[in-house]
């Protein structure tokens, strides 16, 4: 049976991308009685084989890489990475209903107040055109939608008054070990807000401890955007999966239709309003692919900023072993972190946070499946490897840079013959200095703990946290930004962007709660415009 992927007649809103931003926008606008159609390049995974539990097995078995868990790769997902730093794009995204929340870690913090005013408060980067107070009620709304489990115990976080919808996950055993060392160093630890249920919430189970959170939660306790896609459908929205939008047909002021390709053929979806929610790489790529006589450098690109200022967070970490059990790898999420040094940020050193790992060292089952021993030898080896690892991680901000960008690679095409995205990722010295500073603190904590420090990830070997930001930045000046503070493109009156692509700067906190808050705000603006 072939699916009906033909366009919806008389659609009010066409949402492109079924990740968290697109799902929330679609849900809100559907609930407001608008006719909404969602197009996504990937499938609805729940519809067929392999099942989610079978995909979870892929997460553990060595035969499969991370992209295999959610079928990323192949011609559809071809890309280039020409920057100073290699960017492993297909480890960093999922296409399909739920988008990258299918494989995300699920940490959901609010940005700090200074993150919205980097130029003013830190002397580098740019200010956002909106401040924390503007976004604050939407953050609370987003926490409710995602069912965040958290506690108001972060003395360094921005002000908040609303309780979290679920209680925080209690600290881990190893958090207790870290707490003693941190107390001696006068470093405060606090809970981590998690978009996973500590208790049953919104019809979904509480976490049952599979320990495979990233890249997959088989129980559904971890939020993924499929929740809001389903809710939108219940309100009447139409979802068209395996529908790759190739081009946006437009005049000088409006988008008229999205041209999309499906396994059955090509279609044209008209709508009164368009919301681009395809993430920080595919959103600018679609705009660049939609160039025209009106917009020779790419749609909505009068500023020349489309694709520019690509940012990610960089990982800093250190780990080692203790001479006592540390009880790692029971769960795949974090329960404690520290924002104590976050707001020390200035021109020289950026904001960063510290994370206390619950999954340091090898997972015994993965080691067993990948080893070259068995029987008693294997057990001896597992017992020797497991049990006493510790690690402290962290995320570091990189600044927006014009030479860090997402462009089109004219020499390589995807399955539809369109130029693939080129992720040209450059990082900058401030981020590298921040990694050094984070490493200093991480090492000091481990040494205070009595650990034999075995590894460090810092300026020489860091990698991205898979948070794609900045490529359609928000601002008030149409010559320097792509969307206005209402997230509508400066150039087109019926096109909004809901994505971390609109972040002018990235801070050093996982972006999805901010994506969700901005999406809810964008939905309000679209509703008002309709």
């Amino acid at each position, binding site marked *: 049976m072939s699916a009906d992927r033909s366009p919806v007649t008389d659609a009010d809103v066409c949402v492109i991308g079924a990740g968290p931003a697109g799902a929330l926008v679609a849900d809100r606008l559907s609930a407001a009685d608008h006719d909404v159609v969602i197009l996504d390049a990937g499938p609805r995974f729940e519809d067929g084989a392999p099942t989610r539990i079978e995909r*979870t097995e892929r997460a553990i078995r060595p035969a499969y890489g991370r992209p295999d868990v959610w079928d990323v790769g192949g011609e559809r997902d071809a890309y280039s990475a020409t920057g100073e730093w290699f960017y492993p794009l297909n480890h960093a995204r999922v296409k399909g209903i739920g988008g990258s929340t299918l494989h995300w870690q699920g940490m959901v913090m609010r940005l700090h107040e200074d993150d919205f005013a980097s130029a003013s408060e830190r002397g580098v980067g740019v200010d956002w055109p909106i401040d924390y107070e503007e976004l604050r009620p939407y953050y609370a709304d987003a926490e409710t939608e995602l069912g965040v489990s958290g506690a108001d115990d972060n003395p360094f976080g921005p002000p908040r008054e609303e309780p979290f919808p679920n209680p925080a996950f209690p600290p881990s055993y190893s958090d207790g070990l870290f707490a003693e060392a941190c107390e001696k160093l006068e470093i405060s630890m606090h809970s981590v807000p998690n978009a996973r249920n500590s208790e049953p919430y919104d019809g979904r189970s509480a976490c*049952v*401890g*599979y320990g495979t959170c990233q890249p997959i939660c088989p129980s559904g306790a971890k939020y993924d955007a499929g929740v809001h896609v389903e809710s939108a459908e219940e309100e009447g929205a139409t979802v068209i999966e395996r529908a790759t939008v190739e081009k946006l047909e437009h005049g000088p002021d409006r988008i008229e239709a999205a041209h999309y390709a499906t396994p059955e053929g090509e279609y044209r979806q008209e709508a009164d309003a368009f919301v681009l929610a395809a993430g920080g790489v595919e959103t600018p790529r679609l705009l660049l692919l939609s160039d025209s006589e009106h917009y020779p450098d790419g749609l909505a690109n009068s500023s020349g900023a489309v694709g520019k200022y690509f940012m990610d967070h960089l990982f800093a970490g250190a780990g080692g072993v203790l001479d006592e*059990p540390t009880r790692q*790898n029971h769960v795949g999420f974090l329960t404690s972190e520290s924002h104590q040094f976050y707001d020390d940020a200035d021109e020289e050193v950026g904001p960063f946070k510290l994370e206390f790992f619950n999954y340091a060292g090898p997972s015994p*089952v993965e080691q067993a*499946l990948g080893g070259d021993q068995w029987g008693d030898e294997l057990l001896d080896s597992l017992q020797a490897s497991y049990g006493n690892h510790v690690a402290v991680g962290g995320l570091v901000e990189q600044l927006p840079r014009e030479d860090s960008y997402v462009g089109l690679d004219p020499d390589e095409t995807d399955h539809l013959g369109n130029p693939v995205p080129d992720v040209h990722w450059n990082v900058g010295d401030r981020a590298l200095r921040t990694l050094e500073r984070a490493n200093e603190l991480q090492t000091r904590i481990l040494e205070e703990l009595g650990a034999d420090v075995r590894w460090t990830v810092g300026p020489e070997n860091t990698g991205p946290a898979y948070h794609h930001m900045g490529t359609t930045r928000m601002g008030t000046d149409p010559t320097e930004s792509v969307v206005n503070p209402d997230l509508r493109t400066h150039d087109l009156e019926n096109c909004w962007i809901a994505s971390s692509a609109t972040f002018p700067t990235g801070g050093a906190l996982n972006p999805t709660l901010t994506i969700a808050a901005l999406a809810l705000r964008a939905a309000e603006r679209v509703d008002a415009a309709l």
Partner: protein
Amino acid sequence: MELTRRDAVAALAAVGGGAAIGLSGLVEPPSATSNDHGPRESGSGAPDDAEIEETLVATAEVVYPSAISGIEEFVGTFLSGRLDREEHRAGMARAVSELDELAAEWYGDRFAALDPGERNEFLRELGADLVEEDPGGSTAERVRYYVVNEVLLALYASPTGGELVGIENPQGHPGGQASYQRGPQA
């Protein structure tokens, strides 16, 4: 350590088995597995479920730690949640069939009929200890995936196998929210 039926049900509840616990809220009891089969002649066609089970039990006797007993029921119960995956079952059947053919060529009998020392030697000669598992790879890589790692997954993603290593809620097992908070003496 004696593996019990309860251990096998726990292994089934883990990632290798059928249901995601958080979604279903319960574990289906394993169906009884047939053991009333005679030995299969080498080259006599695709192995049936009982023959697959017999081969995997024979493998587990080699690749599990020597302190483990109760393997037959454990592996049999685990497989009851695996053999209904059509594609996976076909992969297992093919790997078992090839394993038996080579065992007959090299050692003069089906794999499960060899003594444990011969089985160990044969699997190592095949290279199943050194290769990376690959469901679409060479015979050795598929034997590693569908036979050796099948039973290692059953053991080490279950609380029983985890406890041997020191982790009662290993990755892949839905062991709840309490164990990560507990200390080593608890």
